[in-house]
């Protein structure tokens, strides 16, 4: 049977101009690996939104990282006060990973 290890999965949905700052905060919290995912559109609390490559101001990107619980907690503590003012969504959940060294 393959060995799996417990990790925290963090997802942040944010406007594209904010992503470089989120990556910086993640690095400060010790999260050195992440993936950025493009989005097509959706409907949220402020209504419909769609991909906006023209201005880039409201194009949304999903930041995805899987990391240890300490790093995840440090990242969430730093980002949580900014969620309301910057219109971001933050989700965290438990995952099991294979090859745990890839998810420090």
């Amino acid at each position, binding site marked *: 049977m393959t060995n799996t290890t417990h990790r925290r999965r963090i997802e942040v949905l944010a406007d594209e*101009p904010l992503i470089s700052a989120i990556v910086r905060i993640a690095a400060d919290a010790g999260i050195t690996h992440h993936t950025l995912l493009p989005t097509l559109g959706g409907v949220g609390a402020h209504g419909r939104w769609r991909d906006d490559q023209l201005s880039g101001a409201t194009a949304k990107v999903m930041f995805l990282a899987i990391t240890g619980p300490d790093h995840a907690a440090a990242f969430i503590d730093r980002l949580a006060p900014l969620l309301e*003012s*910057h219109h971001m969504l933050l989700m965290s959940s438990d995952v099991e990973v294979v090859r745990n060294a890839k998810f420090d």
Partner: protein
Amino acid sequence: MALDALLQPVVLFFLLGALAAFARSDLAIPEAVAKGISLYLMMSIGLRGGGEVAETGFTHDMLVAGGAGLVLSFLLPLPAFWLLRTAGRLDRTNAAAVAAHYGSVSVVTFATGSEILRHAGMAPAGFMVAVLALMETPAIITGLLLARAQNQDSLAPRGGLLHETFLNGSVILLLGSFLIGLVAGKAGMAPIAPVFEVPFRGMLCIFLLDMGLIAARRLLDRRALTIRTAAVALLLPLLNGTLGVVLGVELGLDAGSAAALGILAGSASYIAVPAVMRLALPAADPGLYLGMSLAVTFPFNLTVGIGYYGWLAAHVWPLIRG
């Protein structure tokens, strides 16, 4: 000239896009294609402007127009801010963010306006492209000062904000292409003209079809817009554009260049400024500043403003001056 402007294919394609969006058609231009065409348009505008300046050389008019453009971009957000606070009833942060958009410029409005002016025998001077690039960013600084600098909880590092403001893609591409056109001159431009000159109008038509779709869809999703903010979005281009034309004529620019200065002053950014404002003033509502600049001011300028600025520069203001 105003009616003539409305019947140009570029404007008609914009109207087609808008009608399709209002009719809830599934017509769509892929985002990556639209982004690519916007880069093409900026390269073409820059190259052609640089090529023309290579022919005419650096003139007194060029310095005057550049200075006027810089001053306008720095100062136009001030009355806009006041109008947005009083008539628009916006809070300080939103008013400052929107005001920055109205001090900056719209590349596509300029490109369309230049084509319409050229068609009417009033081609603006090539150096107006440099003025366009100069007017992209000063308004951002004024807007941030009006908002009393960065919000305390902003994610933006100060260095990153300056980088984003002065080295944003459109400024680099416009100025870089202008310099390449200047270095290459008309002779150097000839081999690439089949790519950057001949298809320009056709590409502009495709881009404006997409802009019609975007503007109309944003108007349909107009949660952030009120009657007051929409009225201000119609009033600001008229006031700013008139000021630009009057300043251009008073400074001795030819009618086409004065009209182009009016187009620049009357236009509002929806490419360079929104991304900076989203980073620097996160509390400002992007639905508001994009809605005003893209869904109201841009269509107004395309259908009414450009014709009005051209008419004012060619006939009215010189007549008033005697």
